[in-house]
């Protein structure tokens, strides 16, 4: 009997803790958006962060995109060749990348590369009392520190996803056309004919925008709410990767269902 009561107690505690966390996160998100107005007067703050979270993620995104393109080219060819449709390789590579792999893998890589560094940076700022010092200087850390990073993530993600997709298409082309011997004209013309600017590329960009908001905010929230100790920061960094990866996959399912269903 006690075990059952304890189970319910633990379940209640778990639900309450997560609801509180969700409420705090929502409130912080609203506060950050509310305080973002001053960034129009000081865009340099966002530009600096785009360099930090966006530019510094470029190499990992581009290299990953290239290899994903290689693999898509190979796997796509093996499958299409069974049905004599290898001419559609360009279309398969482009649709896979624009609709799914580009936004999703970019977001997962972004969570690992930029998300963790954002969490660690904010967590260490908190541990080193830099955020408290800022408050005592009458500077709101949500506006001065969190908001520029959030907008930098939101702006960077679609650009990085576009780069990932473009490099991936080139990877697929490299494997499919020069190495395997698929016709170059067919590769590009099938792609041009089958990829829709709005429903494929546009929806892919919307996805990456949503992932940008989710991943960047999760990383910032985890850093801001981290316990100001070395263990606290390391746990927050781990939580960033786990929560943002799961959120990206769950959001991808929801968005795909909304965007591509009949």
């Amino acid at each position, binding site marked *: 009997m006690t075990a059952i009561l304890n189970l319910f107690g633990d379940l209640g505690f778990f639900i309450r803790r997560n609801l509180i966390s969700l409420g705090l996160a929502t409130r912080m998100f609203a506060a950050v958006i509310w305080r973002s107005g001053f960034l129009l007067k000081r865009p340099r703050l966002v530009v600096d962060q785009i360099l930090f979270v966006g530019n510094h993620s470029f190499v990992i995104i581009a290299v990953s995109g290239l290899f994903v393109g290689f693999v898509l080219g190979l796997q796509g060819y093996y499958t299409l060749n069974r049905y004599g449709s290898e001419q559609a390789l360009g279309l398969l590579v482009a649709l896979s990348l624009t609709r799914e792999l580009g936004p999703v893998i970019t977001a997962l890589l972004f969570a690992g590369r930029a998300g963790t560094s954002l969490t660690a940076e904010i967590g260490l*700022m908190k541990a*080193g009392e830099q955020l*408290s010092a800022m*408050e*005592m*200087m*009458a500077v709101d850390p949500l506006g001065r520190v969190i908001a520029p990073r959030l907008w930098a993530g939101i702006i960077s993600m679609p650009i990085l996803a576009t780069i990932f997709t473009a490099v991936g298409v080139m990877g697929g082309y490299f494997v499919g056309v020069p190495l395997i011997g698929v016709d170059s004209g067919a590769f590009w013309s099938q792609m041009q004919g089958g990829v829709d600017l709005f429903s494929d590329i546009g929806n892919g960009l919307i996805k990456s925008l949503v992932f940008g908001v989710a991943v960047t905010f999760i990383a910032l929230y985890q850093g801001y709410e981290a316990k100001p100790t070395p263990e606290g920061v390391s746990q927050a960094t781990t939580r960033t990767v786990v929560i943002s990866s799961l959120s990206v996959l769950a959001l991808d399912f929801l968005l795909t269902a909304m965007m591509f269903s009949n």
Partner: protein
Amino acid sequence: MNSPQPSSLDVKKSLGEVVVSIKDVNFSYAPGERQILSGLNMEFRRGQVVAVMGGSGCGKTTILRLIGGQFTAQSGQVLFEGQDIGKMSSKELMAARRRMGMLFQFGALFTDLSVFENVAFPLREHTDLSEELLRSLVLMKLNAVGLRGARDLMPSQISGGMARRVALARAIALDPPLIMYDEPFAGLDPISLGITARLIRDLNNALGATSLLVTHDVEETFEIADYVYFIANGSIGAQGTPEELSRSTDPFVRQFLDAAPDGPVPFHYPGQSLEEDFGVRA
């Protein structure tokens, strides 16, 4: 330094109006948790260097956080220039904080900014000064703490004592009437300690400000402070000028000043008796 051996009354009479006043403040971090401050009353007057001393965890830093509006008292009032910090709107609190400077225990310098930019930070955030004027002001502040030559260094390239001095320059960047110091002497070598203590006194005199010093370091503090509060069990255990406290026979003050391991503040954390723990009969 003041005239030799002034009494508490002399000190209070000779100084300006009350800048910060703490009235019957009770504080705990959460309802039902240990009471950190209970019925605390304090006054900090213009021109004074006031030290708040006491054992670790007695609530000294909490007092600074209450004055800065980072914590709110459960009951009582914390008045800054006559206004209740706990009842201020967010905008009023920000305006009040612009009139305060705070030196954190380890400096809390922004690690991604150079020494120059750290000191320039509050000026850039709160003023529209030209770059030329801002540079002159920052160099003047850095000159006051003896670090004009270190302006291009990053926080990772300077020692703990230097970081504390840079943070001090940053804290006085806006010439605040109230400067708060959280453990400014912790972990400093004797030279840095002496320099920091002298800077606190000299800057207070030069700015005509009020300095509130939370510290453990008796010797340096008694040299520069006008008035000292000892915190014990969440309220004032003893208070007076350094000279009065040096002559005090109060057991708590004596234990603190003589660095005695046992006394009113016990050496052993409360628990089972030695006999019970080791299974030995007395």
